[in-house]
Structure formats: C-alpha cells, structure tokens
C-alpha cells in the first residue's frame, strides 16, 4: 500500500497561509513590554506546525527556515531570551519571506529553495540564538549589532515584494449575498412571466393587473440592483488591516512607540473606492507617524504618554462614509505652514487667515514643511496628491489641529460611484439632479421669510432659525430672466442647513452617474451628469462643492456663517 502525498499539497498550502495569517496577527498584537505566554505559544505553534508539515512533504527549504525560527521561539518560550522590537520585526519579515517561498513552491514544486531574504533572516535569527548562548557581548557591540540589523532590515523591507493581496480582477463574495441575488433573479423571472401572460391576450380590463405587475418589476429590479451593488461593497477592514503592519514597520524605522487604534472596520465601501483610498490613507498615516507624533524623548518632556496614538476610524454619515485619521502628536505648526506658504507665494503676508484655512494650505501643490526630507514622507508625494486622489473619487478631505494635542484628517467618501437616489429639479429650464442623501426637505418659498443680511447674502426663516440661501441660478451663472424661484431645497452640509433656491421640483428617481470626460473643465458644484428618461442630459449638483464655492463669495468669510445661523428669532 502506498500513499500519494501530492493529494495533500493543496491542503498544506492552504493551511500554511492560514497559519501565517495567525502568526502575523499575533505578532502585531504583541506588546514588547508585556506579552503573555499564550501569545508566544501561538506563534511557536504556528512555526512548529509549518515545520512539521513541510518536513513530512519533504519541502526542505521551508523546513530548514522554520526550524531556525522554531529554535529561537523555543528559547523565547522557555524564557531563555525575550522578544525585542528587532526580533519581532525580523519575525514579521519572515512571514513575508515564507509567503513568497510558499507561493513559488505552489507554482512549481521544484522551486523548493532558499531565497536571498530567507538566508538573511536565518542569519539574523541565528544571531539572536547565538547571542543567548554567548552573553559576553559588551554594550557597545550590542548597539553596533542592532544598527547592523536595522540596516539589514531596511534592505529586506525594500527587497521583499509582498504578494499583492488586493486582486483587482477578482472579488470574494459571501454566499449570503449571492443567494440573495439568485432569489431576486427568481422573482424577476416570475414577474416577467406575469407580464408576458397579461400582454399575450391584452384587454383594457387587464390594465390594473399590468400596472401592478410593473410595480412589482420596479421593486424587484431595484432589489437586484442593490444586491449587485452590494457585491462590490467590502468592509473597510479590507484595507485597514494592512496598516497595522505598516505602523509596526514605521515604529522600528522611526524609533518611536506607536499604537494604531482601528475602529469602525465593518463599515462597507465600494471596492473601487476602497482600493483607491488605500494609498492616500497610508500616506496620511505615514505623515502622522513621521511628522505628527513626537519622539519618545519629546513626549516625555511634555509629560505625554510615551506611546503615541494614531486613530483610524470609519463610519457612515449621510450617503457616504467618513474616514478619520488622527494622532495625539504635536499638531500642525501654524507658523511654519504660513511662512512656507508665503515663501512659495501661495498667500500674501498681509492677508489674514483663520487657523483652519492655514492648515488647509498643506493640501496645496508642492507643499512640504519638513525641515529635512526624511526617508518616509519626503518622497515627493505631497498632501496635494492625496487631496487630488480623494476629490477624484468625489470625496473631500479636511484637516483640524490643536497645537500640542494632535491633528485629525477627515476624509469624506461616496458609498458607491455608480448610482444615486436623487431629486430632479428644474432651474432656468434646465434639469439638475441633487442626491437625496443631502436633502433634508423641500419647501415652497414664502417671500416674507427672506431677509437680506448684507448686499449679497440672504437668509430664510425656517422654523425659528435662519438659514442661508444660495440662488443656484446665480451660482451657475444661468440666465436670470428665465428664473422663477419658487422652492427651497434644504440641504445638510456638515451639519448645517442651507437652502438652495430652485424653480421646480420634479420626480425622485435613481440616476446612473456618468463622469465627464477630461475634455471638460471642472465646474465647482457639479460632480457629474446623467442621461434622463427623455434623453436629455441632467447635471448632478455636488452640494458640498456648490456651498463651498458660494461661501467664498460670502464677504471673505470662508466658514459657514455661524453668526447668521445663531442670530435667532
């Protein structure tokens, strides 16, 4: 009797990849100052299992590699040595290395060889093992050694190309979501049969029946559409999880202690949006770690906790998702930003700016305040690129900062790029579209409720509060003669109500967003267009952009006019 081992290879690879996930996850959770036995046992066990299995299948390179790791981890387990920031880093690198080896081996079973990286890692880990046995290291030697290791690590991290975990061509969908779709398709078939049946022998008395069938069709197709769109929705943890590892790397490179707090990782976003914000968010985190957080010494001096915190949070707001990236570092340096902006002729020295306006200057092209270009953030990619990437997605980014307490970046993103629930409106004989999610309600204008605050600004008395009015036809420079503003569409912009004066309210419907081609100049306040049922093109109003654009005309006050809002009754 003989057993063909090859039938177990697939199982071996799958299990190994799963085990490595556990290994990496546990390593990332390890706090160098106080890790517990169970954590060490877990990482030991993973390596032990991979070693045992690879030995059984005669994958010698992987077996030998894991054997060295196992020996080291066994010493840690027996308290002969402790994990260090460096060794955790090396172990993390070894997961990448193992993944690469496994992937190569899976592709071609004859490629069971050491790689340059695996050799280096073995050498490093071996040095940890040897050091334990030889305690005669002088302090100076140890320091030099650590520096050497750090240099080696830098080499490694640049050399190791992680197998890209985000595949642009495929998507993992839960069976539940697919079942739901199949269910929807089933209903669609039934309603199609119903309609066919009615129309096959149609008579006027069947009209009511037909109407009912069509309304079922409308509902079913909407469910189907929602279902299909939901397939594209992925929890943000899909990209957030990668940042833990990145922060760990930053920690050892910058020599700072950093803790990454992730919350709201179950918030779902369109896959395309998610993929496109992955790099901008990574860049913001790198910036926070590099420029935002102080060094451990500086933190001690200002009696802050030694470990710097970076917060990453996601939640739904209105029709979109907000991602916040914050830190408890020193905050943005207002003077430095201002001076740099003056130097770059972005602003004039005599101009007066609010704090937030100055902070937002960091999104200007070619802006960098770092005194010296560090390895991390100073790679020529500025915050302006981050901002462009986010606005290209139909999102926006703001920054708030308090000196000595930290800074927070607020990124607003649309849930999906394809379809929106919308209100069709008419202004000067043109049809525009406003996303339903930003509309609070629509009212008929009562002229007696309008008051003029200054020459150009008007407010509307709406349930005992005064809200600013934006006359959309003025904003878009439409022909004023055609305008007969009768309705006020009240929208919520960052928690503040604004009234948009429009001529007519038309139907509410879903529209498919079509992006403008690059040939057209970007119009402030218009985010895209759609083809309406009658074939006409309707422009989609970007409420946030429209309000922002009109506010700049607002007597030099770039913020929403609080004083007007609070004028009261």
């Amino acid at each position, binding site marked *: *009797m*003989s057993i063909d081992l090859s039938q177990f290879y697939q*199982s071996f690879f799958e*299990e190994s990849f799963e085990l490595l996930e556990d290994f990496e996850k546990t390593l990332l959770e390890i706090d160098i100052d106080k890790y517990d036995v169970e954590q060490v046992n877990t990482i030991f*066990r993973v390596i032990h299992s991979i070693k*045992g299995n690879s030995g059984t*299948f*005669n994958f010698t390179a992987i077996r030998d590699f894991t054997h060295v790791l196992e020996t080291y981890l066994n010493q840690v387990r027996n308290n002969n040595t402790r994990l260090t920031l460096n060794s955790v880093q090396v172990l993390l690198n070894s997961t990448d290395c193992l993944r690469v080896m496994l992937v190569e081996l899976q592709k071609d079973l004859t490629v069971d060889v050491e790689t340059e990286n695996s050799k280096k890692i073995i050498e490093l880990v071996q040095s940890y093992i040897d050091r334990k046995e030889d305690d005669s290291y002088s302090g100076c030697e140890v320091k030099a050694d650590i520096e050497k290791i750090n240099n080696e690590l830098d080499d490694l991290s640049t050399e190791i190309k992680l197998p890209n975990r985000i595949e642009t061509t495929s998507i993992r969908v839960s069976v539940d979501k697919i079942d739901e779709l199949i269910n929807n398709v089933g209903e669609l078939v039934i309603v199609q049969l119903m309609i066919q049946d009615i129309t096959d022998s149609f008579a006027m008395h069947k009209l009511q029946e037909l109407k009912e069938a069509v309304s079922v069709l409308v509902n079913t197709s909407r469910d189907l559409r929602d279902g299909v769109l939901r397939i594209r929705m992925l929890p943000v943890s899909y990209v957030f999880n990668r940042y833990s590892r990145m922060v760990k790397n930053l920690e050892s490179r910058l020599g700072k202690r950093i803790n990454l707090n992730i919350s709201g990782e179950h918030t779902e976003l369109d896959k395309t949006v998610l993929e496109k914000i992955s790099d901008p968010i990574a860049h913001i985190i790198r910036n926070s770690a590099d420029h935002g957080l102080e060094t451990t010494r500086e933190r001690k001096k200002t009696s802050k906790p030694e470990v710097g915190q970076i917060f990453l949070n996601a939640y739904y707001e209105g029709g979109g998702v907000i991602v916040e990236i914050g830190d408890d570092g020193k905050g943005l340096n207002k003077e430095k930003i201002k001076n740099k902006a003056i130097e770059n002729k972005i602003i004039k020295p005599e101009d007066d700016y609010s704090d937030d306006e100055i902070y937002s200057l960091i999104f200007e092209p070619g802006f960098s305040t770092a005194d010296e270009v560090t390895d991390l953030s100073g790679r020529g990619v500025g915050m302006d690129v981050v901002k462009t990437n986010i606005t290209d997605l139909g999102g926006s980014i703001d920054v708030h900062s308090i000196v000595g307490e930290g800074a927070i970046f607020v990124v607003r993103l649309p849930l999906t790029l394809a379809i929106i629930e919308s209100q069709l409106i008419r202004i000067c004989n043109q049809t525009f579209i406003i996303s339903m999610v930003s509309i609070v309600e629509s009212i008929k204008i009562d002229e007696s409720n309008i008051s003029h605050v200054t020459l150009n600004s008007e407010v509307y008395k709406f349930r005992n509060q005064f809200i600013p009015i934006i006359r959309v036809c003025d904003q878009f420079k439409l022909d004023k003669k055609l305008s007969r503003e009768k309705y006020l569409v009240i929208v919520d912009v960052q928690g503040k109500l604004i009234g948009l004066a429009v001529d007519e309210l038309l139907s509410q419907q879903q529209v498919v967003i079509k992006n403008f081609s690059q040939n057209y100049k970007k119009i402030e306040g218009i985010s895209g267009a759609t083809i309406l049922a009658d074939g006409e093109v309707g422009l989609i109003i970007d409420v946030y952009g429209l309000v922002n654009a009109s506010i700049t005309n607002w007597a030099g006050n770039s913020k929403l006019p609080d004083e007007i809002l609070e004028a009261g009754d």
Partner: protein
Amino acid sequence: MHILVVDDSSTMRDLLTSCLSQQHEVTSANDGEDGLNLASAESFDLVITDLNMPKMDGLTFARKLRECEDYRYKPILVLTTNAEIETKKQGKVAGVTGWIIKPFDPEQLNSIVHRIIDQ
C-alpha cells in the same frame, strides 16, 4: 480497529486519516480537549496524538487519558518532530507507549500501527 488521531494541523489530520483508513476506522480531533471528549464518548483501540496543540497539549492529553479506566492499558502514540531525551522522559511519565518521529513515511506508520496491535 478504531483509531483516534489528535492533531491541530488539518493537513496532518487529513494525511493520517487517509493513511490509516484503508485498514482501520479513523476519527480525528483538533486538540487534547476535543480528543478527551471523543475518547470518553467512544472506546478507541489506539490513540495517536501530536504534542504541540492549543488548549491542551499532547502530554497533558495522554496523562488525562491514562486516568480514565478505559484507557489505562490502551496504546498511545505520540507523533512529533521533537525527539529530545527530555521530552521522551516526560512522555514516559505521562504514559506514552511509543513515538513516531516526523517526518514519517506513511508505510512505516502503518507497519508501526500493526506492530502495536499485534503486541
């Protein structure tokens, strides 16, 4: 013969099960705790266990098994990569019958199992 295989690695469980199931009935468990539950519910003729497992390791499992009336004299084999003297000593105390050292040859495994049964 009814054999209980205890290993936290699914690959190992699959491999052992298919090696042995050509001639025996095989049941498998993820860890010592799981194994102990199965062993108390059913009477196995032979137990093969891994050493390093979460929740309950192989030696603790063997020791607990020996405390049960039913398993006082049943063969318990340990499957391991670690064949150090110290581990073997601890195994002897725990009541381990024999050792199979990984990596093992499936045919060798079968002949060991046969030898154990014939004894």
